[in-house]
């Protein structure tokens, strides 16, 4: 595993050098074209400053920005126990220092990504579409692929390379726009004939470079990010010991036609499959952020004999049809490679897929702050977070239901000892909520904050995230 990281580090470094050179050249040419005598230095400085600021922002806030763009919401274990379990399994398999934070994105397109600059503060986000479509082994495959990105230090690379690419794109874009509106006037007003000619040449060179630079940078960036997808696949196989899980997950992802319209190409390499499929399909292999999904499946399916990196390398070479070289030699000298495991017993809810879809929709509503209430006539009501009123009329039986709150009960003597510490901060009283159904349920804490109880909730008390008060659930 370490060989992979060091190889990745070398390649990342090379990429940064080349991309940095492109960026600074661009800055120089633009500066030289606008301010003929010695504007080049000024241009370089400007480009470096823009890049520095963007890098700093993405280093410290990259993950939260990314999660925000994707519209991801953090979930707890109770919201989706299976997803949480799978993430924990991969944490153990990959010996990560901490369990990554788990996020859900409200999108029917099956996809997933990982973010966070270090393994210590990594996050994994999956779409609700992924949760409805995948079985346990497939979900594990997808999470393992994302864990592979975390282990191989791809996230830091993609963040920084993405920022560099973004800077190049922005700088040349500003220049080209400026050219369209004011460039010719500025050029015409130059007085000295000689200087004008020099500036004109400079201008043309800058123009050509400004058009070419983003393309060059993109090709470079995408070439390396494609390679990393294969590496993450290889790591996923190593972690799960079950290539078929990831293969059939990719198959299902390829079969879906939904797009994630809010995503763009700069952050696409973080996803397991290109989130903007329609655009990717039309373009050639060169400008794609991900290797063709069919090829990834073919490699995974032709892995034979074991689940080590060597086996993946062999399958890779076989599918590519030449001596394609993916992994460094030292990573391949691995003894005692474990053999693949068998499929795990599939834990499905046994219901129809429609029922699972409803479960996932409820889950998303809960995550988005909806309130759940069951009327005495049995109708389940889902109340949007901006509803605003304290009570709601049941649309079926017209009964007015109040949003339940906790009851304050004097602490009973039975709880002496065990509940002593809880009681103290509640001032001799404890808040109690009596559960009504086994499904999603909501109630208001004394401070007014709504608390969601998931169907998987099995504890005896819950802590309010707003005021910190512990409510007993009976």
């Amino acid at each position, binding site marked *: 595993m370490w060989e992979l990281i060091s190889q990745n580090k070398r390649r990342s470094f090379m990429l940064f050098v080349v991309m940095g050179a492109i960026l600074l050249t661009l800055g120089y040419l633009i500066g030289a074209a606008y301010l003929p005598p010695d504007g080049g230095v000024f241009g370089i400085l400007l480009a470096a400053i823009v890049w520095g600021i963007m890098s700093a922002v993405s280093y410290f806030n990259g993950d939260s920005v990314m999660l925000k763009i994707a519209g991801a919401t953090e979930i707890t274990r109770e919201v989706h*126990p*299976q997803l949480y*379990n*799978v993430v*924990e*399994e991969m944490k*153990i*398999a990959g*010996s990560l220092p901490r369990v990554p934070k788990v996020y859900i994105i409200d999108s029917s397109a099956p996809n997933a990504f990982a973010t966070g600059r270090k393994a210590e503060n990594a996050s994994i986000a999956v779409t609700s579409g992924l949760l409805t479509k995948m079985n*346990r082994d497939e979900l*594990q495959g997808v999470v393992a692929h994302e864990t592979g990105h975390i282990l191989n230090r791809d996230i830091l690379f993609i963040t920084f390379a993405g920022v560099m690419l973004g800077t190049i794109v922005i700088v040349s874009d500003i220049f080209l726009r400026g050219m369209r509106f004011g460039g010719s006037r500025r050029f015409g007003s130059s007085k000295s004939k000689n200087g004008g000619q020099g500036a004109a040449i400079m201008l043309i060179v800058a123009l050509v470079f400004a058009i070419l630079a983003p393309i060059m940078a993109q090709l470079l960036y995408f070439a390396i990010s494609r390679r990393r997808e294969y590496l993450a696949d290889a790591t996923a196989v190593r*972690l799960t*010991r079950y290539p078929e899980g990831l293969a059939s997950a990719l198959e299902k992802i390829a079969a879906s036609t939904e797009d994630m319209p809010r995503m763009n190409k700069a952050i696409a390499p973080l996803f397991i499959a290109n989130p903007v499929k329609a655009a990717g399909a039309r373009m050639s292999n060169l400008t794609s952020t991900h290797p063709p999904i069919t090829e990834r499946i073919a490699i995974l399916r032709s892995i034979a004999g074991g689940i080590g990196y060597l086996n993946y390398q062999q399958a890779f070479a076989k599918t590519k049809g030449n001596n394609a070289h993916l992994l460094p030699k030292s990573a391949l000298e691995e003894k*005692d490679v*474990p053999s693949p*495991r068998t499929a*795990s*017993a599939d*834990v499905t*809810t*046994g219901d129809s897929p429609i029922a699972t879809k409803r479960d996932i929709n409820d889950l998303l509503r809960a995550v988005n702050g909806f309130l759940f209430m069951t009327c005495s006539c049995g109708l389940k009501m889902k109340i949007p977070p901006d509803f605003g009123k304290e009570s709601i009329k049941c649309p079926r039986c017209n009964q007015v239901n109040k949003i339940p709150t906790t009851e304050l009960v004097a602490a009973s003597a039975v709880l002496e000892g065990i509940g002593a510490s809880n009681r103290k901060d509640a001032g001799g009283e404890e808040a109690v909520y009596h559960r009504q159904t*086994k499904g999603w349920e909501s109630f208001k804490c004394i401070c007014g904050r709504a608390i969601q109880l998931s*169907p*998987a909730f*099995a504890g005896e008390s819950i802590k309010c995230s707003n005021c910190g008060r512990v409510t007993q659930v009976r």
Partner: protein
Amino acid sequence: MLIILVLLVLIVVVAAWLIGLYNGLVGLRNAVKNAWAQIDVQLKRRHDLIPNLVETAKGYVKHERETLENITNARSRAMGADSVGEKAKAESALSGAISKFMLVVENYPDLKANQNFLALQEELTSTENKIAFSRQAYNDQVMLYNNKIQMFPSNIVAGMFNFQPSEFFEIENEAERQTPKVDFS
């Protein structure tokens, strides 16, 4: 004078080197212990889940009393095991008993529709996976440690301070396939 000085420097260097080797061995031994603790956490979790599973399933699978008893017995045997080898054997027998039960469950749609049971089944599946993954991590660690103990020059230090090689957590295929035989009298 010079000879004494050279000798002194030599002694200091050798001592530092030996201390380094010794500390390295201790570090590895602790890593093995830590990896073992990780497996133990998951094994305990499984032991905790089983009574719940049996309790939930009992009402539905009246004709599978034997299968359930097998699980319960394998569990208590695994909890009583002492050495690593013994434990591995007992735990894999328990794995076998559980997976046999999971096959049986397919014939009981009512049980499969029980929300409580489904939650337990997910927890058990995940715990089985976690056991497998942490076992792999443990064995990797043991190999590193044992290699160090047996290879020159660290084997000298290991012999001096009595570092014992650790046992691998091996799953015997036979044990995994076999379910323990239990008398009902």
